């Protein structure tokens, strides 16, 4: 059962990888990286149950936080070309 879940996740990761490798636009790649990160986190949880150590779930929660922060940083970079602008401010020259 858990093996089937791991297999499904591997297939999903392969699909995301194809999109990240071929993705014509930047946003395809950003989206592919973000959802591939999510699949990796789920795979970590599955590995935990596969080896009989469910405490791997804690590690995958930390990975989820890192993945989220990295995606926000990438998107913010593309909006402002800099990390030093606060997210709430709307710059006059925008992107």
């Amino acid at each position: 059962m858990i093996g089937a879940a791991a297999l499904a996740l591997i297939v999903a990761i392969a699909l995301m990888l194809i999109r990240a490798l071929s993705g014509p636009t930047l946003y395809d790649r950003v989206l592919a990286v973000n959802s591939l990160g999510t699949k990796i986190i789920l795979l970590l949880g599955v590995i935990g149950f596969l080896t009989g150590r469910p405490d791997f779930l804690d590690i995958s929660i930390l990975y989820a936080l890192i993945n989220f922060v990295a995606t926000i940083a990438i998107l913010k970079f593309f909006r402002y070309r800099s990390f030093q602008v606060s997210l709430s401010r709307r710059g006059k020259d925008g992107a």
Partner: protein
Amino acid sequence: MTGFEGATLAIDLLNITLLTILFVVAIAIARLRSLFAIVMLSGIYSLVSATWFVALDAVDVAFTEAAVGAGISTALFLGAMVLTSRTAKPEKGATKIVPLLVVIATGAVLIYATIDLPGFGDPNSPANTGVGVEFLERTYPEIAIPNIVTAVLASYRGFDTLGEVGVVFMAGLAVSLLLGFGERSLGATVRREDRINAIKDDEEES
């Protein structure tokens, strides 16, 4: 230790799959010319290799890889891209073949070195007969921290770790002094010079 029968086989298959993904991503990084795609793919590489480290029971290494590789260095690479161009120049001639030869030679030497290593979990290996066993026996009665790696890193080797933190802090300080912040940062200066040059070009044309 394993959850159910056949779990060892499943873990072996997972290891092989993760290594295949790493291989594909590495080849793609070497072949692509768009720097943004390379940054995204190196983030993927770090996350996948961190997962592989967890599957190999090296949880602390995996966490460092995820935080530094997927988090910080993606942001740093993007920041560096502001200062340079968006695509890499194609290599030609000797620069194309020499790195490949170096990598193959290094890999062959490393594979040759693994022949001498003791088997995984071998009770007679140096790691399981020397100080390792002593740490396993003494750590819990002495400082009552269940994770031996954490205990060694933060307690037995505390001064060494403090020195490392100092070195990392100084490196970060030096980098931020070089690159600067806000109006006077290197990125802002480069952009300002670009703008001035563009205005000059326009004036010369008109």
